[in-house]
C-alpha cells in the first residue's frame, strides 16, 4: 500500500511519495542525509601521550625526529623542510584549517613510520584540557627543540637552506606559484624576509620552560572543558570550523576550537610554536593531533545525530576543490591527493583516537536523541467519525519545550501518527490534517494550521484493516510560530478532515473513523 502526502508550499519539498514511514525519511532534506561513513576498526590508534601505553610511540617519534634532523637539507622530509610546508601553505582563520592539518599530519605520520622503523607508529595527542602544561617528556631529548641536534642560529639555518630553498623555488609548478602568491610569497626573497622573526636560538625555543611549564590563566580557560564543549556544540560545519574564505591563505574568522585552544596554546608556548615555523617544535604535532581528534569527536557526534559532517550543497563543492599542493609523502615525493576533499575523512590514513576530553558529547547526545525518538504522546480521540468536510479531532498534551523546539528550523520534527479505519474503496479521497485550527475556520493549504494531506495511490484499492500514517507537524508549527499563533503551553489539537475528489461516494460509511493518534518527535 502506498500513500501520497502533500503539505503547504513552504515545505512541499519535504513530502514526496512513499509509504507512511518512508515519508518520514524523505522528509529530511538531502543535505541532512549526507554523512561520512562510520569508520571501521582502524589500523592505527593515536594515544594520549601521557598514557603509559604511548611511551613506545614517543620513543619512535624521537627516532623519526632524529632521522629527519639528520636528513640532508635537499630532502623534503628533512625536519626543517617539513616545517616549510606549513610556512608556505597552512590555512588559519578559515574553513580549511581542520582539513589541511589533517592531511599534513597524516603524511607526516607515514614519514615517521618509515623513518622510525616502527610500522605501527601513530602520532600521540596532547590532551591539554587534562594536562594544561608542556608535558614533561617534551623537555627531554629531541622532543625539546633546544637539543643540540637542532640548528642553533639563524645564520647557520640560512646557510644550510639557501641553496635547497632556491632549488625548491625553481621546481615550483605554475599552480604552486599561484598559491604562494596568494600568501604574498612572490619570490624566494619573500621567503627569506619572513623567516628571521620565526627562528629561535636554543635559549628561546619556548616561552614556557621546564621550571615553569604551566599555561597562563587565559590559556587554561581556552583549553578548559567548558570551552572545548562549547566548540563542539555547533550544528553545522560552517559554525564548527572557521569561516568561509576565497582561498586557504585568507584569514576570515576563527571558530571556537581554532581561535581558543588552538591559537592560545600556540602563542602561550611561544618560541617556534608562536609562528609559521611551529612544526620545528615536536609539540606541534601532539597539539594538532588533539585538534584533529576534536574534529573527529565533532564528526562522530554529528553522525550520531544524523546531521551533516561537512559543508553542504555548493559550499561542499567549493570547500572540496581547494588545492593543497605542497604535501610530501614518506618517500619525499609530492602526493597525488591534492584537494581538500581528499582529506574530508580520515580515510586512507586509517587511524582512530583513544578517547579524550570532549568525547562525552558523543554518547550523551546520542542517548538524548534515542530517548527523544522513543518519546510518544498519546492523544485522546474526541471525535473519531470521518465525515466529509468535518473534523475528527484528537487532543494531546505535549510538553511546551518539545513544541518550542519542534517549531524551529533546527529542532526535532514533531509528527502525528494517525491510525484510521479507511473505507473499503479509498479512490478519490484525500485526508487533510490541521493543527490547532480555530473552530469553524476554513483551512486551506496556505493556512499556517494546515499540516498536510495524504491520499491513496492507484486506481483500485480494496482496503480492509486499519492504516497508519505519519504526518510531520513541525512545518505547521513553524508557520504558526511566525504568525504568532503558536501557544506551546496549550494542548495540541490534531484534526483529520476527509475530502471528496471527483467521483467520490457521497458519504463515508460509519465504520470509517480515526482509531488512534499519537504524537512524537524524531
Amino acid at each position, binding site marked *: 500500500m502506498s500513500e501520497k502526502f502533500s503539505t503547504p508550499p513552504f515545505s512541499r519539498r519535504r513530502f514526496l511519495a512513499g509509504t507512511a514511514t518512508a515519508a518520514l525519511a524523505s522528509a529530511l532534506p538531502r543535505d541532512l542525509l549526507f554523512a561520512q561513513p562510520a569508520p571501521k576498526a582502524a589500523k592505527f590508534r593515536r594515544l594520549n601521550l601521557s598514557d603509559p601505553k604511548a611511551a613506545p610511540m614517543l620513543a619512535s617519534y624521537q627516532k623519526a625526529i632524529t632521522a629527519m634532523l639528520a636528513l640532508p637539507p635537499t630532502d623534503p622530509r628533512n625536519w626543517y623542510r617539513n616545517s616549510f610546508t606549513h610556512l608556505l601553505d*597552512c*590555512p*588559519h*582563520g578559515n574553513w580549511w584549517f581542520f582539513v589541511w592539518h589533517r592531511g599534513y599530519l597524516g603524511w607526516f605520520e607515514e614519514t615517521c613510520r618509515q623513518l622510525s622503523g616502527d610500522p605501527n607508529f601513530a602520532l600521540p595527542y596532547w590532551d591539554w584540557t587534562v594536562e594544561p602544561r608542556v608535558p614533561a617528556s617534551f623537555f627531554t631529548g629531541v622532543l625539546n627543540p633546544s637539543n643540540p641536534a637542532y640548528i642553533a642560529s639563524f645564520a647557520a639555518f640560512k646557510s644550510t637552506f639557501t641553496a635547497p630553498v632556491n632549488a625548491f623555488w625553481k621546481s615550483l609548478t605554475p599552480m604552486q606559484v599561484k598559491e604562494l602568491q596568494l*600568501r*604574498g610569497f612572490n619570490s624566494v626573497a619573500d621567503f627569506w624576509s*619572513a623567516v628571521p*622573526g620565526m627562528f629561535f636560538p636554543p635559549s628561546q625555543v619556548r616561552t614556557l620552560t621546564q621550571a615553569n611549564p604551566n599555561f597562563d*590563566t*587565559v*590559556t587554561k*580557560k*581556552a583549553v578548559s572543558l*567548558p*570551552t572545548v*564543549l*562549547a*566548540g*563542539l*556544540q*555547533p*550544528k*553545522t560545519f*560552517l*559554525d564548527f570550523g572557521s*569561516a568561509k574564505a576565497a582561498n586557504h*591563505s585568507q*584569514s*576570515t*574568522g*576563527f*571558530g*571556537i576550537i581554532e*581561535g*581558543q585552544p*588552538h*591559537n*592560545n596554546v*600556540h*602563542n*602561550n608556548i*611561544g618560541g617556534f610554536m*608562536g609562528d*609559521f615555523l611551529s612544526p620545528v617544535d615536536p609539540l606541534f604535532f601532539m597539539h594538532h593531533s588533539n585538534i584533529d581528534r576534536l574534529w573527529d569527536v565533532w564528526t562522530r*557526534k*554529528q553522525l550520531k*545525530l544524523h*546531521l551533516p559532517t561537512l559543508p553542504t550543497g555548493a559550499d561542499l563543492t567549493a570547500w572540496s576543490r581547494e588545492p593543497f599542493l605542497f604535501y610530501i609523502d614518506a618517500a619525499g615525493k609530492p602526493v597525488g591527493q591534492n584537494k581538500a576533499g581528499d582529506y574530508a575523512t580520515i580515510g586512507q590514513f586509517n587511524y582512530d583516537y583513544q578517547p579524550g576530553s570532549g568525547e562525552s*558529547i558523543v554518547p*550523551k*547526545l546520542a542517548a*538524548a536523541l534515542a530517548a527523544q525518538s522513543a518519546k510518544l504522546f498519546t492523544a485522546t480521540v474526541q471525535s473519531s467519525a470521518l465525515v466529509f468536510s468535518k473534523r475528527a479531532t484528537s487532543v494531546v498534551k505535549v510538553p511546551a*519545550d518539545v513544541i*518550542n*523546539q519542534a517549531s*524551529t*528550523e*533546527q*529542532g526535532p520534527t514533531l509528527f502525528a501518527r494517525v491510525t484510521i479505519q479507511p473505507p473499503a474503496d479509498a479512490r478519490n479521497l484525500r485526508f487533510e490534517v490541521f493543527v490547532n485550527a480555530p473552530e469553524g475556520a476554513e483551512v486551506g493549504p496556505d493556512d499556517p494550521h494546515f499540516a498536510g494531506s495524504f491520499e491513496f495511490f492507484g486506481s483500485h484499492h480494496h482496503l480492509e484493516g486499519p492504516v497508519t500514517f505519519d504526518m510531520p507537524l513541525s512545518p505547521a508549527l513553524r508557520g504558526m510560530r511566525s504568525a504568532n499563533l503558536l501557544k506551546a503551553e496549550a494542548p495540541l489539537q490534531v484534526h483529520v478532515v476527509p475530502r471528496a475528489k471527483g467521483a467520490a461516494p457521497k458519504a463515508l460509511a460509519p465504520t470509517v473513523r480515526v482509531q488512534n493518534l499519537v504524537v512524537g518527535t524524531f
Partner: protein
Amino acid sequence: MGGFRLLFCLALAASSVVLACANSRRSTPAGEERRVVTLALPRPPAPGETVILRVTTGALPRGARVVVRLTDGEVLGAVSPFGVLPGRKAGPSMIPLPEKAMANGKVQLVLEVEEKGQPPGRAPTRKEVEAVDLVFVPVTGQ
C-alpha cells in the same frame, strides 16, 4: 555563521557611536572608559540556539592578545591571532559566552590588550578591536 548580527557596540573609540557603554565614570581615565563594552540581547536564545561572542580585531601588535573578561574578572577567552599573514587583519574570533553573562538581557564585558613585556591590561584601540557583537548559533547541546 548561522546567527545574525545583533548589536554592534563600538565602545572602543571616543569618536564612534556608542550604543551602550556602562560604568563610564568621569573619574576614570579615558582608557578605562573605553575598555568596558555593554551589549544588549534583543531576545533570549531559542531552543537549540546558543549565544556566542564575536570579537572582530584588526592587526594586533606581534604577540599581543585581546583578553575578554566579565566585569567580575572571570576570563571568558582571548583573541590570540595565530597564522595570520603579516599586515593582515585577524578578523572575527568566536568566544563562548556562559549563560550567567547574559543577565537581564545584557552582556557587560571588559576587553584588554596584553602584550609581552608591557604592563597588563590596556584598553584596545579602535583599530585593534573593530567590533564586538553577539550571534545566535544553532547547537546540538552538550
